[in-house]
């Protein structure tokens, strides 16, 4: 581990350099009318992060995303545990979940808008719709693959269903469930941003769709960069936690 870490850091650094080089090459090829150079984009992103009017949008997105993730986790766990514990419901429900996972949920946005109107509830609903299904599928698989002895032991001890969930299932399935949380995190973020693009007057997604409308390439590039950095940073942290959990168990 101690030897592998600097080497891996070197690999990641090389990767970042290679991506920046590709970007610069694309910039030279496509020209300033199509995209901005890496240096210019980073400078503009830094400038954007320095302006006070940017933060209400960032906070709005963070708020919508947090609430959406809360709903996605709550419903995902509820569905996953219920279907995972009750074998027959699981057999009925799992193909439905898999089918829901693979349909383009973005086509449902008009329905979400008609149901929730424009604003925070629609964004949250859109984010949660994207996150809930993978969380439910992975939780379902995690609960079903548990060693049945645990459940038998819990039944022998006459634990109540919520006790079984809290003190047996949850601790035993934590590493797998966390993988679900990680996947759900990414998809909820994408869903929330999409929701903002269509159904909002505030937030990063709104800024992005507005920049598209105004053909403001600098803003599009800087926003894309900020979003990618946030998403990659968050997912790297979650991945590290994921690995640690797996090793600990």
């Amino acid at each position, binding site marked *: 581990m101690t030897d592998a870490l600097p080497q891996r850091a070197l690999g990641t650094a090389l990767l970042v350099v290679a991506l920046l080089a590709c970007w610069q090459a694309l910039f030279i090829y496509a020209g300033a009318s199509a995209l901005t150079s890496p240096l210019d984009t980073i400078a503009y992103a830094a400038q954007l992060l320095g302006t006070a009017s940017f933060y209400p949008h960032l906070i709005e997105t963070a708020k919508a995303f947090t609430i959406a993730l809360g709903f996605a986790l709550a419903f995902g766990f509820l569905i996953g545990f219920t279907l995972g514990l009750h074998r027959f419901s699981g057999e009925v429900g799992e193909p439905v979940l898999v089918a829901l996972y693979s*349909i383009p949920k973005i086509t449902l946005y008009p329905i979400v808008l008609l149901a929730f109107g424009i604003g925070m509830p629609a964004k949250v609903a859109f984010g949660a719709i994207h996150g809930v299904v993978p969380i439910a599928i992975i939780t379902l698989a995690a609960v079903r693959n548990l060693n049945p002895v645990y459940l038998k032991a819990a039944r022998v001890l006459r634990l109540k269903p919520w006790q079984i969930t809290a003190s047996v299932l949850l601790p035993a399935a934590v590493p797998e469930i966390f993988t679900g949380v990680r996947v759900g995190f990414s998809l909820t973020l994408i869903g929330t941003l999409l929701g903002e693009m269509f159904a909002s007057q505030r937030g990063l997604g709104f800024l992005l769709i507005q920049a598209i409308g105004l053909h403001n390439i600098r803003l599009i590039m800087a926003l*894309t960069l900020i979003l990618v950095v946030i*998403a990659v940073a968050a997912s790297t942290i979650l991945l590290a936690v994921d690995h640690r959990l797996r090793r600990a168990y």
Partner: protein
Amino acid sequence: MSPGRVRLALAIGIVVLLEALVRFGVIDRFALIPPSEILWDLGALLLGGAIWPAIGKTLTDVALACVAAVVVGVVLGTLIHRWRPFREALDPLFAAYYAIPVYAFYPLFIVIFGLGDVPQVLIGFMLGLVAVIVNTLNGLDRVPRVLIKTARAFRLGPVATAAEITLPYAAPYIFTGVKLAVAYSFIGVIGAELIMSRTGLGYEIGFAYNNFDNAVMYPLIVLVLVVAGSVNAMFFMWEKKLLARRRR
């Protein structure tokens, strides 16, 4: 009752419930039209013929994105697998990839490639590509050493080894990637069409929505869900068949 029958009964129940809720005015007709009318409108739309170019365009784009993602993904996956340092450098990118909102690149693609089919196909391709690469790598990791030794004993070159031994062994894992690529191609293409485009099913849904044209919007949404759902189900059954043959 078998799980399949219960599912069918549940689906019918939900449709009947929605029908009743709209007919008795619990749900506003402005928000939802009854399922029977959606079906009727869908029939009229398909017979009318004006929608077929949009359907053809979307399905062509989805197919292009999917095939490109699978071919490029398997080739790249095989190459990356052979060169270990490269793979270790790319692993964090793959792990973080699906956290990146790919649609954020769409405006960029429009600026670079214009508002034709290319940006939409590219979004579908980008969404599917990494799923194929990751699953190809996963499959190649599981090839037993003895098979690779056999290839060496027969003095097979790297291309022949991949084509005749390692890739066929990894096929079930690659198939998981293919299924994801199919789903992601639909999601990517139709999503991109909704955000900004001139034709296609996504565009038509967005157009109908902006005009409060529920008699077009709902049938098209149902059409997209049914088409995407049946294509996915087809691949699911094909996979089952392949796996069954393998086990024999």
